[in-house]
């Protein structure tokens, strides 16, 4: 089985965000870059499926700046076979439509039986590239899966539905699935894996994106929260807290 996993290079979750001089991007100084955490679940799921099947190929695909080879090498060190980098210096500001179009074009010649994505990248938090990718490829899509099993050429997946329900889908392959936390525990690359990854191929391609359908007008820091106060210490402060919640905040 050929599995393609789409990943994105994003700022680490503990990054402090500063706005860049252009007012539409972030200041990259002092940012530590990582694989978007939800994408790691997708990578791990692909590796587990390949191991269970005793064969197949896992290809990692990303649209990103040239530096994304670092994240791709990490995936290769985890055990993926090869990687494709669609080089785009402005990848992080591409809208979902343009991103999905470029990924779909690349997937077109990778002969994928299954495409896995994270449920969202933790930079733009759009949560739509996987679904749009499926629409472009004309494939079924189930989002935010937390269980995955392949039997008889079908993917059986579970996702959280509305009101605490759990939904199970049987999905004909090929398909696009987006992954969320709970699906698995992503592995760390072994030393041997890191050594082997150095010899694995990364196919770097230059791409040019179409204009986005959703334009980014500006990026700004959120307004600071109003000043708070310490109401008091210990249980003696409870009546005052309740009074404030009722009379000042009016939330009780």
């Amino acid at each position, binding site marked *: 089985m050929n599995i393609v996993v789409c990943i994105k290079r994003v700022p680490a979750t503990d990054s402090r*965000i500063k706005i860049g001089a252009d007012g539409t991007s972030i200041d990259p100084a002092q940012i530590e870059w990582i694989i978007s955490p939800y994408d790691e679940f997708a990578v791990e799921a692909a590796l587990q499926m390949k191991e269970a099947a005793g064969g197949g190929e896992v290809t990692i695909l990303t649209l990103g700046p040239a530096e994304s080879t670092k994240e791709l090498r990490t995936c290769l060190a985890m055990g993926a076979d090869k990687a494709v980098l669609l080089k785009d210096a402005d990848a992080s500001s591409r809208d979902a439509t343009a991103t999905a179009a470029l990924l779909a074009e690349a997937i077109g010649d990778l002969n994928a039986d299954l495409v896995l994505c994270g449920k969202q990248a933790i930079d733009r938090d759009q949560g739509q590239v996987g679904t749009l990718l499926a629409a472009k490829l004309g494939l079924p899509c189930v989002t935010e899966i937390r269980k995955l099993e392949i039997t008889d050429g079908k993917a059986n997946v579970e996702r959280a539905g509305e009101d605490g329900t759990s939904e199970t889908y049987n999905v004909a392959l090929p398909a696009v699935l987006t992954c969320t936390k709970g699906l698995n525990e992503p592995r760390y690359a072994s030393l041997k894996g890191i050594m082997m990854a150095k010899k694995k191929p990364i196919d770097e391609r230059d791409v040019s994106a179409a204009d986005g359908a959703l334009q980014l007008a500006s990026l700004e820091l959120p307004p600071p929260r109003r000043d708070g106060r310490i109401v008091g210490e210990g249980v003696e402060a409870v009546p005052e807290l309740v009074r404030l919640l009722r009379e000042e905040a009016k939330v009780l």
Partner: protein
Amino acid sequence: MAGEILVYVEQKGGAAKRASLEALTLGAKLAAARSSAAHAIVAGDSAADAAAECARYGAAKVLVLDTDPKDTHALAAAVAGVANDVALVLLAHTAKGKDLGPRIAGALNAPLASDCTAISNEGDTLVARRPVFAGKAIATVKPASGTLIASLRPNAVPAEESAADGAVENVSGAAPSTGLGAVLAEILAAADEKIALTEAAVVVSGGRGLKGPENFGMIEDLAAALGGAVGASRAVCDAGWRPHTEQVGQTGKVVSPNLYIAVAISGAIQHLAGMRTSNFIVAINSDAEAPIFKVADYGIVGDAFEIVPKLTEAVAALKAQG
């Protein structure tokens, strides 16, 4: 429908979801300012029963789709089928909305601004504000042209009544199921129906300071007294004390309730990202230096094991008074 606004309203047993009524309220206001109209779209069993409620929140017309909303892909196709040339298709950024929005965007080949906290008219253009980097920054976005699809974060705007006609129009012959081979096999109900974390008006979250999963009873009790939902920090979920579905933070749920109570949570940056847009934040922590106090409106320094039960008692007493 050219230039008009469509709002997909989720309903259950004929009652509209509050988050959907918030979206409808916003849609009606945007439409009024454009001298246009906002229409509600409902689907599913007893959908027609929700029509009167939709009208009270500003729907000029209520389109009742002959489609099973459980099949999200077919629902998206049906919504897209009535959305020709509209200015905006608006929905709530709920569990359903998150799955539905991108499918409508795919079907209409129109851009989606997801999880918006505000949408306004700028001349003829609709401009949306949405948190990015889990709320560490706010992006202002607008469509290059044509229809915008947008999902609205629950609790971002109030649901307000403003009577409109609400004439019911049945839309049948909706697109057949186009699930493209993703077949919904079963839906397992939750053991007990809980308020969705991202839609709750009150969220009470517990952190590692609670020392163990056995101590979350008091968090559940306080949440129950407030009619809210239970959340947890990443450390707590990673330790397996609580399910991942309750995690609040950058790699969990982003919540924006009217009242957020953080109990024994220090306030790591990735947690703050997931709750800082809450209207009011209360922090209870034994460490006066904990970063959570920097975003809290009201803080109590002290032992959560003593404070939380007292707070629950006080809230219950207040609610009993009515």
